[in-house]
């Protein structure tokens, strides 16, 4: 039997809220959201965009060494982040500031590595949010292993919503080419692990368009490994929420992995070091601006709910407070002590390393001007 790949030129996206702000239904992914929840999602979107733009500004001011903006991807990240239950684990790349936000991570926690005062430095267990991972794709295998642990702990398919646990692994379109990501697919499928692979296809891997990585839509990749794949409008927070919820439930209930391709767009540069004018045209940007993830929710709230002006004014104020928190907090992040580089290399540090530390400490002391100690 020959299986011809079913190439769908423009495959349907799961969409529940059009770019114009109109609610539509989807046969597979129904969602029942109250206006209050919608406002709450809107709040997240707005605040995530705000903290992101604040960080970009801080980089320009020299307060951060680098920033990887999530501009344009807020709906994908908030939708996915809000679908998680407390016990679920998530493994981000370096761009999931919106997921971090939904998990309750203080944005300042994220800034450390971009400022260069640490390499991440948070505890994944604090918010069930993994450390930012810069090596493309590596975290998908960590998600796989974590899901093995979940499975061994009996926290899959028990039917108890407090117990059953899924793992959500984030990665980009470019990452789908890495061996690690495909090995994660292999293993999760073969072992029927409770992991959801959430690919934000933002159309670019730095300067390379997604066509450099694949000639078919990425969500189709999953079927080759034997698990379902779905493409969702990554700029539609409702659709992302509904689809991720369903996928996580699929995983928690013991049906194994699922892949989600959130079709979205990187509205900014790859990072603050990047210059996208060298490789892409502004027309593309204009097209995607019309599909803005926040604008459509605002339209809906204004037109189809009784959200009053106070809500928006209050949110503006909250947004300002967050921005101030980010700015002030960033500047206050202390530089590490030179000797701190030795602190956490090992749990049980070798004598020789401690000697190296002591020698260096003595060397540093030798610069202290006489009488200054």
């Amino acid at each position: 039997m020959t299986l011809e790949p079913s190439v769908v030129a423009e495959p349907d996206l799961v969409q529940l809220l059009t770019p114009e702000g109109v609610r539509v239904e989807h046969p597979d992914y129904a969602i029942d959201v109250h206006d209050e929840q919608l406002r709450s999602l809107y709040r997240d979107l707005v605040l995530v965009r705000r903290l992101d733009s604040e960080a970009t500004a801080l980089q320009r001011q020299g307060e951060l060494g680098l920033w990887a903006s999530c501009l344009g991807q807020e709906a994908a990240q908030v939708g996915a982040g809000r679908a998680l239950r407390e016990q679920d684990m998530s493994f981000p790349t370096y761009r999931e500031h919106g997921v971090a936000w939904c998990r309750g991570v203080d944005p300042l926690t994220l800034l450390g590595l971009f400022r260069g005062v640490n390499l991440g430095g948070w505890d994944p267990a604090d918010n069930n949010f993994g450390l930012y991972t810069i090596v493309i794709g590596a975290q998908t295998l960590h998600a796989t292993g974590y899901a093995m642990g979940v499975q061994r702990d009996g926290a899959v398919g028990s039917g108890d919503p407090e117990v059953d646990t899924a793992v959500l692994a984030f990665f980009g379109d470019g990452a789908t080419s890495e061996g690690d990501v495909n090995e994660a697919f292999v293993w999760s499928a073969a072992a029927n692990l409770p992991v959801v692979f959430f690919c934000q296809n933002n159309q670019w891997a730095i300067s390379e368009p997604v066509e450099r990585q694949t000639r078919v839509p990425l969500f189709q990749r999953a079927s080759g490994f034997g698990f379902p794949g779905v493409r969702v409008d990554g700029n539609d927070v409702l659709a992302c929420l509904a689809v991720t919820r369903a996928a996580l439930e699929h995983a928690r209930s013991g049906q194994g992995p699922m892949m989600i391709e959130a079709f979205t767009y990187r509205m900014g540069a790859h990072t603050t070091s990047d210059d996208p004018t060298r490789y892409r045209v502004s027309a593309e940007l204009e097209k995607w601006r019309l599909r803005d993830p926040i604008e459509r929710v605002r339209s809906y709230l204004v037109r189809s709910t009784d959200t009053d002006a106070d809500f928006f004014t209050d949110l503006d104020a909250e947004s300002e407070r967050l921005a101030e928190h980010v700015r002030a907090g960033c500047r206050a992040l202390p530089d590490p002590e030179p000797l701190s580089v030795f602190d956490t290399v090992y749990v049980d540090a070798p004598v020789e390393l401690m000697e190296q530390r002591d020698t260096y400490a003595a060397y540093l002391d030798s610069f202290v001007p006489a009488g200054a100690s």
Partner: protein
Amino acid sequence: MAAVTLAKAINAGLRRAMEDDPKVVLMGEDIGKLGGVFRVTDGLQKDFGEARVIDTPLAESAIVGAAVGLALRGYRPVCEIQFDGFVYPAFDQIVSQVAKMHNRSRGAVRMPITIRIPFGGGIGAVEHHSESPEAYFAHTAGLKVLTCATPADAHVLIRQAIATDDPVIFFEPKRRYWVKGEISDDLSVPMHEARVVRPGTDCTLIAYGPMVATALDAATAAEADGHDLEVIDLRSLSPLDTATILASVERTGRLVVVHEASVSFGLGAEIAARVQEKAFYSLQAPVLRVGGFDTPYPPSRVEEEWLPDVDRILDAVDRSFTY
């Protein structure tokens, strides 16, 4: 206790670790029913089940990457890499994740992962089955690197490696898997301590893993020439037990380091560098190195010539005495 093979000593160590801690899981290719190609995990899947002794997909990066995830979930994974030459697909996960995650989290997470690797040559195998990649890992901050030369050490060290909260690359001298010796439950010897396996006065030989037996043979042969050689088994390659090494060289004044790995940029280089720095005035001769040549591991029909042997060690000892 009765004498057991080195392979069995590790097997018993793994078993004991699994009994002591339900979070210990083994993972690797063919470690289940087959018991591993060297039978080191023989019988463990039968006794501990498929959830704890895991026959993995054929993907080394995944084995190590999944171990990282398991560790994050509170497990204590022990990975088997089938042969030394197959650890390279996992190199990225080892160097950039296993070695660095604890530090990346500023101490919040721990990586109690043991990666077992049968290493070295001398068993007549085909390409990629006789490599000695230990220097790559010793040069990688965040990892600890252990070897063993006897059943007794193999048993204790594997248990210590699993028990420690730091990641350990555990090199097993595959051509010594069938050597027999007693094992004991005494875990009191510190994991990173080198051992003087033969005291001597005239010249120090340093070896580890498969070369310890060869170094001991050389020391015995040297007696005939009236040379009393001291032999040190490093056991720990990273960190190195520099104190034990220096104490010996300060007494003997001469040092020959032996390993199978290509001599350039190998363990011998680091040891020579440290000793000439820390025992500058004690050395009566330069530190000499006997190792594999700076070539890929050769076809098996010529491996005995390529590998350091008693004669090549004695040749170096003789050269040392010419100073």
